[in-house]
């Protein structure tokens, strides 16, 4: 149900663009919605991150994934069980840039015996990495639409991304990698019973949405080519706050742009906020140094517990009889 619903929403957005642009609402789609979406994204995501940041961290509870630092002759795992900020930074960098925890992933099977068999399962890690890095490269490549002249690093990135290409237009590797990765991520949610069972409409929706963005982008670039000079006029206009809309830009561009706007606006309200949240996860971004350095709970409040006096008052006679020292004879 969730899958059809999510697919239908993406199709509905595309149909809306057809209807809207057909009715001459170009300004709405090319100027107003992009501004709204961008603002929603920036304000929304900032709000979410600040909001998390305002929640207290009462206890230092990292998940330790290796040997602690203890006796000098025992080799500690400094990254998976960090005690310093540098080590925590290293753990976080590996987590954020290489998805290290996901790299550990295993698959469990129950065989005759009974016997549980654990095997390495790297496909999810690979697909996740492929998707996120392709997305990042594609996003950065798009900065060429917002700068004149196109900065060197972006041109260099495009050169690398199209390394295997002969002829024109340049075929970017990432365009295909992202589509394959997205299809795999979607496939998991449909074909694996457990993953299907846990999937919500909000899990399918971003996949369809980004697939729509990628597909419209690829169509626009290789098949139903649009007036690229006109597109850059629009994007430069948006960037310089003097929006202009040249005539004759194909509908496919408006579809692409509307889906991107949807993604940006949807972002802060969805699970996609893991982009910010991953940095704030206390089980990963704290050091396992509680026995070394004090951690203060900002909302700690005094509580009354049973005092030794109360304890001794209850058991004094028994303690004396057993020869256990007491405070009051």
């Amino acid at each position, binding site marked *: 149900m969730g899958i059809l619903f999510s697919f239908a929403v993406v199709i509905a957005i595309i149909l809306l663009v057809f209807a809207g642009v057909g009715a001459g609402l170009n300004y709405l789609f090319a100027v107003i919605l992009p501004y709204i979406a961008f603002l929603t994204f920036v304000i929304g995501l900032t709000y*979410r991150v600040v909001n998390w940041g305002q929640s207290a961290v009462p206890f230092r509870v990292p*998940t*330790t994934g290796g040997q602690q630092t203890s006796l000098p002759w025992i080799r500690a795992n400094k990254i998976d069980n960090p005690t310093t900020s540098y080590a925590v930074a290293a753990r976080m960098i590996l987590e954020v840039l290489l998805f290290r925890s996901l790299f550990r992933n295993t*698959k469990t099977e129950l065989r005759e015996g009974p*016997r549980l068999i*654990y095997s390495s399962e790297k496909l999810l890690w690979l697909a996740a990495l492929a998707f996120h890095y392709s997305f990042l490269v594609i996003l950065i490549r798009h900065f060429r639409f917002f700068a004149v002249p196109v900065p060197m690093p972006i041109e260099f990135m495009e050169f690398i991304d199209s390394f295997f290409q002969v002829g024109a237009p340049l075929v970017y590797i990432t365009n295909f990698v992202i589509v394959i990765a997205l299809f795999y991520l979607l496939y998991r949610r449909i074909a694996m019973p457990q993953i299907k069972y846990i999937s919500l409409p*909000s899990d399918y929706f971003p996949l369809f949405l980004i697939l729509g963005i990628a597909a419209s982008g690829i169509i626009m670039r290789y098949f139903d080519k649009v007036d690229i000079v006109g597109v850059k006029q629009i994007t430069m206009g948006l960037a310089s706050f003097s929006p202009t809309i040249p005539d004759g830009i194909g509908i496919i561009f408006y579809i692409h742009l509307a889906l991107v706007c949807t993604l940006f606006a949807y972002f802060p309200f969805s699970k996609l906020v893991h982009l910010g949240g991953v940095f704030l996860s206390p089980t990963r971004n704290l050091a396992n140094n509680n*026995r070394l350095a004090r951690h203060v709970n900002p909302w*700690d409040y005094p509580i009354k*517990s049973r005092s030794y006096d109360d304890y001794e008052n209850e058991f004094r006679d028994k303690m004396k009889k057993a020869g256990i020292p007491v405070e009051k004879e």
Partner: protein
Amino acid sequence: MATKAKPPKPDELSKISYTPPPKGWMDTPADFKPGLYCHGTRSKYLEAVGMPYPRDWSASETDWKLPDNWKEIVLEGIKERLQKYRTFHVFMDICVRCGACADKCHFFLGGGDPKNMPVLRAELLRSVYRKYFTTSGKLFGKAAGARELSTDVLREIWYYYFQCTECRRCSLFCPYGIDQAEITIIGRELLNLLGLNTDWIMGPVANSYRTGNHLGLEPHTIKANIEFMLDDIETITGHKIETTFNRKGAEILFIAPSGDLFGVPGNYVAMGELMLFHEIGLDYTWSTMACEGGNFGFFTSMEVAKKLYYKIYSEAKRLGVKWILGGECGHQWRLMNQYLDTWWGPADFLEVPVSPITGTRFENARGTRVVHITEFTADLIKHGKLKLDPSRNDHLKITFHDSCNTARAMGIFEEPRYIINQVCNHFYEMPESTIREKTFCCGSGSGLNAGENVELRMRGGFPRANAVKYVKDQFGVNMLANICAIDRAALPTLMDYWNPGVGVCGVHELLGNALVMKGEIERTLDLRTDPLPEKGGVE
């Protein structure tokens, strides 16, 4: 109270299907299966520590005699905790349901109930959070994964949050470190706002508040129990050992889990420790009040946990010791490592721990001033301070179970292994995916070690037991060593069920066997007072 449900036979129980039902989870209310949940708590235990809504109720009935404004209480509780715990707040928001955690949970692997996939266990609460605290949930309801808080939902959360042992294995594999333990802890706090705890947790809490330990041992009983062990030690070694209780001016306060003062096989651990301390001439004392490192308050609410841990530093201060030595216990070390100092520190009245025997300064404990006994003993052995005869353990083929808490909330892996390798000749590791940070829970942690939920425990312990079975079949392993009192209480049942013939012991029992004491009689008995087999004999 309901009668104990007998678990099905192992070959029956191990027929597990991991395929979820066709109907969605939101439309499937929890089905309370006897053997998979504990009794609801009796009112007297709640009253003993001043917790809200004491009443007698039964988990198997549909009417839980909730207060009229129960919904308000839960929602207010969620709101408050979103601000108090960044873990909870972030973990409610960022899960992408990638499913990496799904087959990492021992309860899912042993039972196949999809709501025991950590992701779904979290969603049970997350769906309520979305409904009342997020824009998308308010606007789009079920399409945004949100649902109303109803009594069915509350019952479901209760059922499944007491089918989680807070072992953190899911957290290790989660790309964002989402820790179901943290969510379970907070979920249970919310349930405790309505007086909805289990008897097996609340009983020990009430005991611990009054007597200092979960078992309710009064001071003279503690002394008597230990003296009984000293008699056994005399029979075994010929040494009449003495120990002290509540002695002021001792250098070290030793705090063990109370399970080691009472039951088999924990008492053998305490015996090993008593022998060790005697042999090295340690100036230490027991406290009859701080006689429990474990803390079932941690399975109740943070406030109760803090309350029960007051005795640790206050007794150390009253007795005027220099530092604290902590015994072999799992969640004791979760708390001593991650909570004790924040709750009741700074321990500036103590000194940075220094081993009086080797002179080693335990720099890693210079804040809390609490040392783990395997750190202490490993250091002794490394410095050649102990004479050991590992052949006395030759009748044992040993494997080591890392406890969840000491593994994933501390990282103490090498210290116990070093000791085992020095005191035994036959040590075999279980498969790599089931040890160290990837260790599997015993299935009975976080207060689930009751009698009425044995099926749940046998299911939850299945992955652990299955790994033991592997080394049993491969190498003839017959002893499962560990550094946790819950393990020592829970694993014997688990082994009898899945791997009959495999015993359970603490590391310091093995040490006690191997320890050659000055002037001892020739040992013919092990610490269990069983005859020692011919030296060098493997059988």
